[in-house]
């Protein structure tokens, strides 16, 4: 799996469904699909939604109930609740879900052991893909500040020099 994309040092916009979303400068946007069942195969009908790649976030994936419904077409009540994480003293529910990262060739199934965090209210402003999802799936991530490009990939099968 390889995903190669660029980010901007300027504010920009992206279309999501019938909305125009503001992307702030230096925000790295990846596209994901959330599906209700971790066991299911890839569903080509699953909607794509943007997520900020946030290596400072220590969890898998965070989304608001509102974005989950509007962009992924999923009612949070349709997702099995797994457990809670404690964040700033508040318990946030983690829900069982399948998460697919849209890569250059085909979507990549991110294994999410603890589920996704679903928030009430309007934070996070955009869904967030955290470092745990990359780490637990053994993905390599490269940020090229000189060209403002990002590469996320599965480790190559071999290294040079041998």
């Amino acid at each position, binding site marked *: 799996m390889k995903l190669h994309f660029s980010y901007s040092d300027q504010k920009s916009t992206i279309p999501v469904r019938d909305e125009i979303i503001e992307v702030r400068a230096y925000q790295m946007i990846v596209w994901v699909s959330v599906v209700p069942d971790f*066991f299911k195969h890839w569903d080509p009908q699953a909607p794509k939604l943007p997520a900020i790649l946030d290596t400072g976030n220590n969890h898998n994936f965070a989304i608001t109930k509102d974005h989950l419904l509007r962009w992924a077409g999923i009612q949070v009540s349709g997702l099995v609740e*797994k457990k809670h*994480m*404690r964040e700033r003293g508040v318990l946030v529910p983690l829900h069982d879900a399948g998460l697919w990262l849209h890569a250059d060739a085909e979507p990549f199934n991110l*294994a*999410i*052991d*603890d589920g996704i965090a679903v928030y009430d209210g309007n934070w996070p402003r955009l869904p967030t893909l955290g470092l745990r999802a990359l780490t637990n*799936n053994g993905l390599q991530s490269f940020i090229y500040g000189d060209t403002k490009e990002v590469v996320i990939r599965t480790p190559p099968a071999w290294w040079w020099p041998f």
Partner: protein
Amino acid sequence: METTKTTEAPAPAVDDLFVNTPIGMLRSMQAYMRELPELLANPAYGGWWVAYCGNERIGISRTGHELARKCAARGLRSAECYIGIIAPQDPDEWVGLDLH
């Protein structure tokens, strides 16, 4: 004569502390937490994944999706299983699970 009909109490459908979590998934998570120290003691499993259905360990694999496929092939539903990574866990994220 009065007859008393005794019925066996049905198994609880939910846990009293985790009313929103399917009982099968909860029991699978508890099995995972119980056996995690033993799995962590084997460095060969570091970063691998393990799947449970209740107290039964379904398998250990390098990837979570492989275990998901294995569970699905056995006809299991994700709501009755837990597939977790073999890595140290933050107790703050397992609130109350150790109370049973």
